[in-house]
């Protein structure tokens, strides 16, 4: 029995019988998708020194332990570039791999993992982005926070300046709370 034959007449009937439905609003994006777009935007709102790239032609945004963000990010950066460098989304499995990244996102509430990454990239021009509360206090630069169903971010300005990165004033203005460093 062929697949084509079996949809023939009954299929048409069911098409006709289904009532017309009104248009309405569509679904909201997930937090991961919004965070992915933030990471993509950060690439334009922060200046990296040329030394940060070590001769590489790509701009790497790395994600540790967050598969859904990784997937969303791969879609967001595909075909995009910043400052003439092709944007690349990369999943990493451990802290040491973070050294070659320009932006590194540390997922989940893995406080231990966060401090490991922060140590691995300390003093290097790597923008660190995380979610856990202690992240900023440990020297992380940008922390995503959920606020009434929206994703906002906090900035630890002192940690940013120590790294040699220059952040646009707009980004600093928009940050929810500019966290003071310890």
């Amino acid at each position, binding site marked *: 029995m062929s697949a084509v034959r079996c949809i023939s007449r009954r299929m048409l009937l069911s098409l006709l019988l289904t009532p017309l439905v009104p248009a309405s609003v569509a679904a909201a994006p997930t937090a991961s998708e919004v965070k992915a777009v933030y990471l993509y935007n950060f690439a334009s709102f922060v200046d990296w020194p040329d030394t940060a790239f070590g001769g590489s032609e790509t701009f790497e945004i790395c994600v540790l332990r967050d598969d859904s963000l990784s997937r969303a990010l791969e879609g967001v950066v595909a075909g995009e570039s910043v400052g003439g460098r092709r944007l690349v989304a990369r999943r990493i499995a451990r802290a040491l791999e973070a050294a070659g990244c320009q932006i590194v996102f540390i997922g989940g509430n893995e406080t231990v*993992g966060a401090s490991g990454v922060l140590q691995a990239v300390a003093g290097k021009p790597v923008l660190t982005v995380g979610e856990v509360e202690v992240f900023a206090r440990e020297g992380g630069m940008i922390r995503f926070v959920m606020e009434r169903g929206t994703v906002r971010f906090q900035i630890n300005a002192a940690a940013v300046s120590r790294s040699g990165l220059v952040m646009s004033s707009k980004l600093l203005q928009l940050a929810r709370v500019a966290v003071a460093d310890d």
Partner: protein
Amino acid sequence: MNRRSGSAIGRGWLVGLLLGGWLAPAQHARATDEGATPLKRLTLEQLMQVEVTSPSKKPESLLETAAAVYVITQEDIRRSGATSLVEALRLAPGVHVARIDANTWAVGIRGFTSRLSRAVLVLIDGRAVYSPLFAGVYWEVQDTMLEDVERIEVIRGPGGTLWGANAVNGVINIITKGARETQGLLATTGVGTEERVFGRARYGGEVGPDLAYRVYGKGFERTEQSAVGTANFDGAQIARGGFRMDWTPLASDGVTLQGDLYGGGIDGRAAITHLDPPGVELSNRKTDVSGTNLLARWQHRYDGGSDSSVQLYYDRTRRDEPTFRELRDTLDFDFQHHVTLPFAQDAVWGLGYRYSSGDVSSLPSLAFTPPRRSDQLFQAFVQDEITLAPELLRLTIGTKFEHNDYSGYELQPSARLLLTPGGSQVFWAAISRPVRTPSRVEDDLEASGFVTVTPLPIFTRLIGNGNFDSERAVVYEAGYRTQPLDSLFVDVAGFYNVYRDLLGAKLGAPFVEAGAGGPRFVLPIFLSNDLDATVYGVEVALDTRPTDWWQVKVSYSYLQMDVRPQSGTDLLAASTAGSSPHNLASLESILDLPHGLELDTTLRYVDVLPNQEGVRISNYFALDLRLGWRMSDRIELQIVGQNLLASQHPEFGKDGPNAVEIRRGCYGQVTWRY
């Protein structure tokens, strides 16, 4: 701004949302080329106003789990063409799904395939659907709006420490999307040779900024599969509806309320034994099924990264078979607290209570004594993840304590070790001691089977055992995962399980008893904890994306079961071992063609099932094809052909007049989204 921005970016986002799962990167990439990633066009200020769906609790990367976990995503389900939850389980490696007839399935993980999947725990949004009457899951009534399933987590191996008893060989955790992720209208309808006509619709909306909801309804008429040598008898009609509400009054708190209601009739053929006058009646009679459930869950996130959840549900199922009728009410309470502790520890602990009351009325030949029985289950668990070496070695230890009315106190400890040496490689190993606790079928049942009338009426009688104890296992597992390339993921797991005190059945000394119509001769068969077993095997899964538009998944599993009676001979030894295949393999190709066309191919191989109560099922290959066409963001068509290689084939054993083979089938469907 605020809410409006959510809908302003609506339509394009629909595309993104449809494309969850492993395939997403490829699809997103294409969407970008077409300029359809609207979030990217928003300014930072606008982005800050976009309302998002809440992420799942304690997200744990698939790569870094010290267990054999496989996740079937919404996209996987959509591309498979599966029309029911149980059929979607065929996508998971090492899971043996065998369709017995149009409406019954046998599912096995790491062996022990059976009609009700005795040693596998199944949860739908945190609600256990394991029936304590016959011990297992009635797959034919476990269903929901397939498009609203976010993912199905399939854990091969024990999950008893976290999930509780009966998760000896696996856990199947079906998770639906939050109401905020299912906004708008979705309607699907189709016709086919097996699923003769089906339709489902869901509408999701919002009441204010903090409260989202959805309602759904679905129904189908399923035609018969092919009975062997007799008229077909196994059609079904089932209708179902439900709702879900998600309320997030604060960023730290979420409340979910959801419920379902279903009812229908399933045709089948029953061999009904009559004691007086003695005889067996072969009857085509409908089984009426219905059920309803209501679940409430409150999740709270504390400052500092810990969180807790409280869940309460009520579930009522009614099943009216030709030989028995059961009405069961279950009330379940669960509390869970996840907290980070000093010295790099991550702990979860919880408490649970379940009250389950079943009222059975049945023919004299299938007696449950007492007919009405209420049972209580108390449980507590604790699990701690300790980082032994940062970024390298983690140890997870935990145990569950429970008390049930059949076997008393049970302890289910486990220890898991995760090694992450870097380079996208993960090694893990685990040892666990899960149990399957007894249920009414082993404890309270007396089931007679008619043999002959001369010279005296002779019956066999399966007799439950009030002393039936839990089935026990010690499970050793190890696994390796690696992602050597962005486009290649490899997952290998091996296991060695030692079982003690599995369900067996022994022939006892015949006796004569007085019946209303005169004396009869009874051959008793006593259920007992009589079998021991050693089961080992290996499962390999490969997921590769050679290009943006093509994904290939390969899986293979090998299984060896040795089942031994503790003494003498046992009537169930051969069929316990003989109902699972040694070799299972599948090859899936998921191909995106130009103009929104999708061509998906699945080839499955299932090895011989050597013996199920004397029936041998031959090995078979099965081929499914799906051609999908996304005409627009709103309309999608698909034609699916299933089991295309043979006009019909058996997948699981049934003997004599009940034997059914599964037919080649196809269906077409159209889906609208607004």
